[in-house]
């Protein structure tokens, strides 16, 4: 079994970081994992994306055209990548910036106002963690407790930011289950 999660959004929305935290959680649970960033000139201001591949066997191709799931943080990302998601996948949509759905009936749309929830948690910049929390809660791709531990580890060096980040993760979880 192998599943791939594509994270996409503006540069600066914390795409690479939330993808890394998911990859870390998968590693903690004993899976094989690869984190593949887009790199290059598009990093400046444009669309950034990153794919995390999680599997039970050594991962072959790091080139993923059709991911299982998508986390779309802005509208161009949804428009570009929604058609590539494999049937049965989850598409997390940042409802604050994206007024539309994926337009597909063979995937699950999960629209979450991640910006609002991040602001409510205390920092708009934690929107990536709201999205991650919601996605993991809905997909069960890793255990939520593992994810929480990985967030704690990631921000261990900046303990003052931890409460907000954990609150953001939790808001995401509630939104996905509510």
């Amino acid at each position, binding site marked *: 079994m192998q599943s791939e999660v594509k994270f996409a959004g503006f540069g600066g929305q914390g795409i690479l970081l939330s993808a890394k935290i998911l990859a870390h959680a998968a*590693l903690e649970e004993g899976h094989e994992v690869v*984190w593949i960033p887009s790199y*290059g000139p598009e990093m400046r201001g444009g669309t950034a994306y990153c794919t995390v591949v999680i599997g039970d066997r050594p991962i072959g191709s790091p080139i993923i055209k059709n991911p299982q799931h998508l986390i779309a943080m802005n509208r161009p990302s949804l428009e570009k990548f929604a058609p590539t998601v494999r049937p049965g996948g989850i598409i997390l949509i940042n409802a604050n910036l994206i007024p539309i759905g994926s337009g597909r009936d063979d995937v699950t749309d999960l629209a979450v106002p991640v910006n609002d929830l991040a602001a409510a948690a205390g920092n708009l910049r934690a929107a990536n963690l709201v999205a991650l929390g919601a996605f993991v809660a809905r997909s069960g791709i890793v255990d939520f407790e593992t994810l929480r531990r990985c967030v704690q580890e990631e921000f261990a060096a900046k303990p003052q930011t931890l409460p907000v980040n954990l609150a953001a993760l939790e808001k995401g979880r509630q939104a996905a289950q509510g």
Partner: protein
Amino acid sequence: MGKILMKGNEAIGEAAIRAGCLNYFAYPITPQSEVAEYLAKRMPEVGGVFLQGESEVAVGYMLFGAAGAGERVFTTSSSPGISLMSEAISYIAAAQLPVVFVNIIRGGPGLGGILPSQGDYFQATKGGGHGDYRLLVLAPASVQETAEMVMMAFPLAEKYRNPVMILGDGLIGQMMEPVEFPDHLRTAPSDKNAWASNGMATRGSRQRNLVKSLFLDPEALNNQNLLLKSKYDRMRREEVRYETYNLDGDYRVLIVSYGTMSRVCRTAVDNLKAAGVEVGLLRPQTLFPFPLEAVREAAGRPACQAVISIEMSMGQMVEDVERAVCGIRPVHWYGKCGGDVPTPEEVMDVVRGLMAGGR
């Protein structure tokens, strides 16, 4: 120490330190500047040397000097930077100095692009600089293997007193995978007193050591080249490394592919197998010495009808594959080198096309 998630570029820096190499000279270039950025922090922590040179030309000779003085030293760069170092590489090979080079290849020729490519195969395996020299070339396909190859590159460079090159591509450098470093750190550097210009007092000798490459006498130069050749022949006997995948069954097509590209091919082989099509994969881990015999043997299996070299370049490794196969099977090539790595689906289509005799 357990597995940790690391970018290929960072793993390269850490692996070198673990291998006991505490000297690093480099010049920034995408897609491998993270190695320099990592070591700018790490080297001072371990009491090592980090210096950003003014150019890759200068870096090449900083490496020459440091290795000539008997210290472990390495650099990392990407294609245009390796071109600038190629002069020094020729001098380093001529002076028989152990230096480790890492080339995280980007698209070329010229300024090209910054995305992954394997366009420097010829440069690494057949020359780049002038004269009759060879590099021992290692081609990793994962972050873990990259780290392992960096760690083995230093003893290999010292065993042969010859530069070793690790040939990766932009994806190997940029992606994160779990890596595990061995607990036993550092391989002891070999004894360099016999040749290093490390100061007579250092080695308690009254005999001086010269590090040089000028041989004006034709016979002396020929002998020097014969000596170098004997080392390269020994590499051909002792250092060939490769990995096989699905070579037990009755495969009809043999794919030869290395680095990132080989992982894409591995997925294609799995998918084809699931669809009832048997395809074999041979992945050279050393590009020089190239696994000639292994490729020949795998190509010669009765069921095998065709061999294809799949590479992120316009047909470079395929020349070595042809050399290996020696005409006993048709040899094909497929590749792309703009930075768009071929997908497993593309590879599957190409293989199916071959089996239909379409190519």
